[in-house]
């Protein structure tokens, strides 16, 4: 077949097995595969066409650990060399003493002084092996133990929309609800306000983004949603930085 042809449009919702394009002049990228001369979807998601490259933005799925991602994890156990951390993925992670602190830790010291079982931490993945063994570090701006507040779980595929372009969405919510918010790439979100009402409005707003993340005009919809809750909203284009905590 000489002629190449797209079978779908930008932002169409497609399902696995659906033909996205025909012909060799299109290139398959994430969430797609080539079969003969066709490009087919291998994930449920939104079509993204970038020149000749066709890919799928997934709408669902578990977190797959990635190097340099800042995530929120929960300490599940303490062993000789450090801490085991649950990452909301199929894989547990390790935080070793040397990556946890610059302090000199004496052999046999009480490690719960740093992080105890059940603690949530903002941490960074600094290494992932081919078998998805994860090494974490606490060395970096904003990486720390979480104190107070609430933990909310969201679909990891929705994290980019919750953060927004250069952090614009999350800063808009923070300002409107007076809450501190940290969004982990693994879908764990930490929210802390000075009162329950602020936190509840924040959770509701994040849930709303999660439900409508695939729609266009999301920022406007969220602004209206916050205003309907009596919140004052300032939309700032191109905020610098992501989570300003980080």
């Amino acid at each position, binding site marked *: 077949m000489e002629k190449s042809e797209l079978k779908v449009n930008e932002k169409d919702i497609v399902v696995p097995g659906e033909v996205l394009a025909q012909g060799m002049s299109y290139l398959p990228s994430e969430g797609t595969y080539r079969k003969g001369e066709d490009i087919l979807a291998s994930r449920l998601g939104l079509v993204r066409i970038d020149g000749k490259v066709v890919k799928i933005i997934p709408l669902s799925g578990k977190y797959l650990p990635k190097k340099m991602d800042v995530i929120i994890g929960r300490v599940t156990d303490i062993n000789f060399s450090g801490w085991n951390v649950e990452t909301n993925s199929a894989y547990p992670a390790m935080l070793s003493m040397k990556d946890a602190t610059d302090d000199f830790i004496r052999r046999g010291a009480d490690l719960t002084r740093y992080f105890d079982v059940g603690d949530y931490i903002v941490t960074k993945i600094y290494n992932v092996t081919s078998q998805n063994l994860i090494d974490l570090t606490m060395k970096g701006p904003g990486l720390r133990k979480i104190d107070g507040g609430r933990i909310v779980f969201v679909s990891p*595929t929705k994290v980019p929309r919750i953060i927004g372009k250069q952090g614009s969405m999350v800063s808009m919510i923070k300002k409107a609800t007076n809450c501190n918010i940290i969004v982990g790439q693994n879908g764990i979100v930490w929210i802390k306000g000075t009162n329950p009402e602020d936190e509840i409005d924040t959770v509701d707003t994040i849930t709303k983004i999660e439900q*409508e993340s695939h729609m266009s005009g999301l920022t406007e919809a969220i602004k209206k949603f916050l205003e309907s809750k009596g919140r004052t909203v300032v939309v700032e284009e191109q905020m610098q930085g992501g989570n300003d905590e980080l």
Partner: protein
Amino acid sequence: MSYKKRLDGRKFDELRSIEAKVGVVKNATGSAYFKIGNTMAYAAVYGPRDLFPRFLKDPKRGLLRCNYNMMPFSGMGERVRPGPSRRSKEISMVTEGALLPVVNLENFPNSVVDVYIELPQTDAGSRCAGICAASMALADAGIAMKDLVGAVSVGLVDGQIVLDLNYDEEAYDKGDVADIPMAYIPNMDKFSLLQMDGKVKPEDLIKALELAKKGALEILKVQRNALKHRFEVVKNE
């Protein structure tokens, strides 16, 4: 050949009415409901997640683990005793086989994807309904898949080839009955489940499979629409 009219009045190549829905179990990574005639199936997918027992871990890819279960009140007659039976274990196994060719878990070594299939009401074709629900639930869970899988049974009732037998047809006693549950992967043009009980001539089997393919393609249309609909509903709100 004396089966001239189907017991429920359907055409020989006609499916029972179908209903499909995605996102029915909030706790799950992905889920679906599939109803065909009076047979209803839920499927919920959890994972990829950490796998126990450890010796099952495969360092090359994630493991797909299916579990088929009839709810105690789902049978046509007496209460179904809870817990696994020889029948449910076999069906769980062939369900895994039906779905494995399309599922790609290479990005998730050492993990497991659990698929729980639960039937609240059955009237023949329950393993096929389970596979249809499971295939949608896997897609909903964001699992990488080459295609969806459509499953339905075909068969011969007193010499007549029919699509999607119901319980009365399976139990037809005025002539021989062959029941052939199968699953079909459209873009490979291959069958990933094939079982049969009854008697059938080889040439009739091939004809029946042709009809099964046609039925599966209709089912696949419903599955695709249900998956897309999940997101379009929100769009219109």
